[in-house]
């Protein structure tokens, strides 16, 4: 029996953890349907999640047996197709449920799916292909061979779908793309200074709202560039400076272009008491749910915050708050440990695999999942701004769960590469 499972799963511990998380997810989605004023919509969704879970396992079984070469070959067409689908979604996409104002779904007959989920995996594959080929071309790349300009191609590759997702607008999924890019670049061995310089405009954006902070930051940046001057071309550090200054100064204009709900979410992140009935409401109610769960929770299906509908989007983005409420700190710790183990396994697999491509695929998945897990759980306690980002394997969402299992299949397949 164990041998049989091991043969199917390829990586028993990893897949066992994912199975446990998925099954727990279905149970939690069942729980979110148990309300005091029954809502016929949410009551039955756990059955649909169960069906998608079965589909996910089927996909896992098939994809985990596909030849790695074929996966490598399909990565580029898949990427192109995903970008096209994202572009199409912007034109004919539909919103759904609470995200009614967002165009993130494509509909085929009665079947809806999120192209962004497909795009995430396609981007991981394409990015892995790019990084692997680059490494092969530079002949087992060493530290010296890195230049700042080397980040342009991978950034552009991720930037295109990221931009299309941002236009939907879906801030949460866009963050996952950033996570993928950062993780893969990190794994490619790029000097951490370069990684910092790459994200420096984003930091400039954040600090630009305080003149003093921005000035201090620019001093640090210039200092860093000076220390690294020997490794940078002149145009590179000029570019970094210009980008930082440009972002810092146009930040206000960018800010004004954000939708009010997005502005609100950022503001509420900075000061949760600011707008308790609007964006902050989510965070306050989520913290009350989690905090009132205490050490051991209120019991399965018995969360009162959930039962009385105080929690927003409780079967999707805020399902972790329901877990916290019903199973307490013990429950959150167990689920977090599960994810930590899964992510740890991904790092080990990436270290142990035999091909560059497989290794980057694994780290891409690592980047996507760690972003999802950290941002999703972090937002329920106010560590990060409230963003529409689901918790892998647990949140309700058909195509999302399916794609999580596809990613899992690619991971175990990639780990087997010699």
């Amino acid at each position, binding site marked *: 029996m164990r041998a049989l499972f091991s043969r199917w799963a390829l990586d028993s511990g990893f897949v066992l953890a994912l199975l446990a998380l998925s099954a727990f997810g279905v149970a939690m989605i069942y729980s979110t349907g148990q*309300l*005091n*004023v*029954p809502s016929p919509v949410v009551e039955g969704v756990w059955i649909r999640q169960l069906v998608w879970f079965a589909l996910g396992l089927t996909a896992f079984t098939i994809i985990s047996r596909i030849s790695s070469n074929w996966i490598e070959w399909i990565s580029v067409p898949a990427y192109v197709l995903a970008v096209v689908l994202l572009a199409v979604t912007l034109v004919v996409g539909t919103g759904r449920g609470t995200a009614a104002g967002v165009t993130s779904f494509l509909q085929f007959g009665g079947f809806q799916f999120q192209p962004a989920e497909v795009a995430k995996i396609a981007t991981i594959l394409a990015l892995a292909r790019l990084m692997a080929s680059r*490494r092969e071309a530079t002949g*087992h*790349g*060493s*530290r010296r061979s890195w230049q700042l300009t080397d980040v342009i191609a991978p950034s552009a590759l991720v930037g295109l779908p990221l931009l299309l997702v941002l236009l939907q607008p879906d801030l949460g999924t866009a963050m996952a793309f950033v996570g993928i890019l950062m993780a893969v670049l*990190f*794994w490619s*061995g790029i000097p951490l200074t370069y990684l910092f310089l790459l994200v420096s405009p984003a930091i400039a954006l954040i600090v630009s709202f305080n003149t003093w902070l921005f000035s201090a930051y620019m001093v640090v940046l210039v200092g860093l560039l000076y220390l690294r001057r020997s490794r940078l071309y002149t145009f590179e550090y000029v570019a970094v400076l210009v980008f930082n200054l440009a972002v810092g100064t146009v930040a206000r204009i960018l800010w004004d272009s954000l939708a009010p709900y997005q502005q609100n979410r950022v503001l509420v992140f900075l000061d949760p008491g600011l707008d308790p009935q609007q964006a902050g409401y989510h965070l306050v*109610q989520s*913290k*009350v*749910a*989690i*905090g*009132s*769960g*205490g*050490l051991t929770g209120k019991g399965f299906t018995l969360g*009162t*915050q959930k*039962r*009385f*509908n*105080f929690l927003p989007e409780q079967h999707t983005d805020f399902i972790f708050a329901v877990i*916290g409420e019903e199973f*307490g*700190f013990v429950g*959150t*710790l167990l689920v*977090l440990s599960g*994810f*930590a183990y899964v*992510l*740890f396994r991904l*790092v*080990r697999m*990436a*270290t*142990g*695999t*035999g*091909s*560059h491509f497989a*290794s980057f695929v694994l780290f891409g998945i*690592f980047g996507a999942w*760690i972003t999802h897990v*950290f941002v999703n*759980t*972090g937002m329920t*306690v*106010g*560590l990060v701004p409230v963003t529409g980002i689901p918790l892998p394997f647990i949140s309700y969402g058909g195509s999302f769960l399916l794609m999580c299992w596809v990613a899992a299949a690619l991971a175990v397949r990639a780990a087997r590469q*010699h």
Partner: protein
Amino acid sequence: MNQFQVAHPEASQRARIAVVGLIALFAVLTVAFFRLQVLEANTYELRSESNRLRPFPIEAPRGAVFDRDGRVVASSVPGYSLHVFPSAASEVMETTLERLQSYLDLDDERIELLLERARREPYQPLLVDGDADFDLVSTLEEHRAELPNVVVRMDPKRQYQAARAVSHLMGYVGEVTAEELEQERYSEYSRGMTVGKEGVERQYEARLQGKRGLRYSEVDALGRVVSSPFGQVVQAPEPGVDMQLNLDLDLMEWIHHIFPDSMRGAVVVLDAEDGGVLALYSAPTFDPNSFVGGIEPDEWASLNSDPDQPLFNRAVVGRYAPGSTWKLAVAAIGLQLGLVEAHEHMPQGCTGGMFVGNRRFGCWEEAGHGALNLVEAIQHSCNVYFYQLGLRIGLERLLANANEMGFARQCGIDLPRESPGVFPGGLGFWEERFGYRAQETEVLSLAIGQGPNDQTPLGIAQFYLAMARGGQAPAPRILRGEEAGATWDIGISPEHGEVLIEGLRRVFMPGGTGYMSSLEHWELMGKSGTAQNAQDPDRSHAWFAAMAGPRGEQPEIVVVVLVELGESGSIVAAPLAAKSADYFLRKRYGIPTDTIQTLREHILTGTPAPWAIW
């Protein structure tokens, strides 16, 4: 060591960094959750409790109102109201209302109206039925599963047992309005409370209104009560104080029964002993129960647009020319000033009219009354006699004395919105009102109860009460057992009072206008009035003011009847007054009330009336 690790020397270093980063990230998360769920758990448990426990007021039952014999006039009974809670999706409201159609009377038009209101106040529970009966409520409870958004609220509601008979006296209740809340009187009230709007309900609001209680109920994020509707009572409500009225409920129902359905008018019955209001009736009437739980807009509109004005309290607010009932005031002033004696004749006998200057002023009896003394003039209601008495008193003195008697004041009844009488305060009145100087001949119309003189039926009752009591009368009182404040004093001596009473008694003698309304058991004294008015020049208002009691004794009650456009005080108003008095006195003296007949009815039905004076 595999191929990759050889090829990528930093890999193990990067993996170490990744693992350290992973541990750091999860450590941060663990600390955050530990802080929230272990260190601050108590705070959040408390917040979770207060999150879902909301304070709700418990409405206090209004004080019950009893009549003089302890019968219930108005009480508080359990009432149910149906609300539909708002939902995120607007179709839910529509579906719920359509489902409700099979349980209660909701036509499509009404649903449209309700949906319109739901759109205007999307976050408020929608009131569908403010006064649902118990059967409906229990049916809905059985079908709770298909109507999850329907909520039944239980609040005490007002019930008027005698409904239409007591509507103008009791008034009605309704939700306190935004404008009312700004007034000092309602400074301690809050939205959604039920207050008295008219009548006794308004007058004694402070006494009848209890004190709201407080309970906590579990609600969900939309404010929907999700647990027991009774919740956890923190403070029990204090019911309002019960009240007993001087009112005789049986008499009210009797008056409601005998007053002609097609007529408009008023009946006031006062207790001669203490001025207590035994009955106060205005027709047409309305059902105060329909205001309970909020009156339907179309019903409110039809009550307001009805040309008969059913909401108008004719007994206390309505003002009418008093006609001949007011001749007693002229007689009283004449006696008071020593200008006339009981058996004194006026210089001119009645020939159906008289000339003053070159203008002829008519008597209602065109054939003329001949020579009459004061008592006979009251009996026959002779205009010519009173013209001359009026001229003898003079306009200025008549105005002064009538004002002193109180004809331009309120009686001070314990009801809201009482109209004061309209009576000229002095000679300037004509210039102000009509733009010309008062002529001495103005006194002629005033002397027969016409001219610029309008009195409420209550005001006339108060005047007759004063006469019945020998000159003074306390303010009419609705509430039992409370000393009346202001008193009326018409300032006549007992001997003069006797003269007036004698005149009134003669009205029920053969030839008097009340004769046909004589009663078997009681002595009646009274005066008819047939007052011309601007409403309809061809049809006069019919008045009858009477006092009654056992034969040879002091009158025990005063009855005033006004029938708008009733044309004849003696034929239309007098029998109503007589039968009202008969009912009350029969009840008081234990005589069966099923044989009440006036003399006219005896004659018409051929029942012998050996008691009648022939």
